[in-house]
C-alpha cells in the first residue's frame, strides 16, 4: 500500500505502469484520476487545495485499511495533491488491484467516496469573479450510505 500527500504533480502513466507491474495473482486493476475541471463559465484561473498535515495521511491510511478489510485486495495506491493547481492539472488518483473486477471497482469507489468527505482537504476556486470555497455536496455525504 502506498499513500502520498504531496504538492508535486505525479506521472499518471508511470504510476499506473508501476502499480500494474507483474501482478500474476491479480486479475483486475482499477484506477481513478481526478482532474481540475474548469467552471461552467470557463474562467477558472486556479484551484487551491488546503489540507491538515498529519491528519490527512492518517485519515487516508484509515480509509485504505477499511477498504482492505472489506474487499479482497492485492494492493492500494492513493496520491493526493495540495497547493495551487491549474485547470487540467491532476488532483489525485487511486488504484486498486484485486483477483476479481467487482472487488477492484467497489474498493476504488469506496476510496473515492470516503476521500471526498472524510479526508481533510478543502478546495477553493479562483476565477475572475473572486475566490470561493467549494461547498460539500449533500450527495457526497449520501454516497457514504451505500457502504
Amino acid at each position, binding site marked *: 500500500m502506498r499513500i502520498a500527500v504531496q504538492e508535486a504533480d505525479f506521472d499518471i502513466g508511470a504510476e499506473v505502469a508501476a502499480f500494474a507491474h507483474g501482478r500474476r495473482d491479480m486479475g483486475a486493476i482499477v484506477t481513478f484520476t481526478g482532474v481540475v475541471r474548469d467552471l461552467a463559465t470557463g474562467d477558472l484561473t486556479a484551484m487551491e487545495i488546503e489540507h491538515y498535515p498529519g491528519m490527512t495521511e492518517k485519515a487516508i491510511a484509515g480509509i485504505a485499511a477499511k477498504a482492505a478489510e472489506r474487499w479482497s485486495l492485492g494492493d492500494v495506491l492513493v496520491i493526493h495533491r495540495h497547493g495551487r493547481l491549474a485547470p487540467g492539472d491532476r488532483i489525485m488518483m487511486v488504484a486498486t488491484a484485486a483477483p476479481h473486477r467487482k472487488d477492484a471497482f467497489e474498493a476504488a469507489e469506496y476510496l473515492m467516496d470516503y476521500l471526498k468527505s*472524510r479526508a481533510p482537504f478543502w478546495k477553493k476556486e479562483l476565477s475572475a469573479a473572486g475566490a470561493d470555497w467549494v461547498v*460539500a455536496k449533500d450527495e457526497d455525504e449520501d454516497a457514504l450510505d451505500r457502504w
Partner: protein
Amino acid sequence: MDVLYFAWVRERIGLPRETVETGATTVSELVAELRAREDRYAAAFADLSALRVAVDQELTDFDAPLAGAREVAFFPPMTGG
C-alpha cells in the same frame, strides 16, 4: 491545547492555529469559550452544523470530551478527491 482552523474558518478567525488555555471538558465548552472572545470567533462558530471537528486528528462530535486532548481542529465539511 493547540487549536487549529482550516479553510474559511481559518480565514474568518484570521489565523491558522493558536495555543489556548482552557478548562473546557468538551468540544462544546471550548466552542462557547472561543465564541465569547471576539466577534470574529462568534462569526466563525455561528452555525455549528456548518462545521466539523477533529480531536487529536480524529473526526469526532461537538460533545466529545477533551480530557487529555493535545490538538483540536475546526473546519468546514471536507472536499477532497
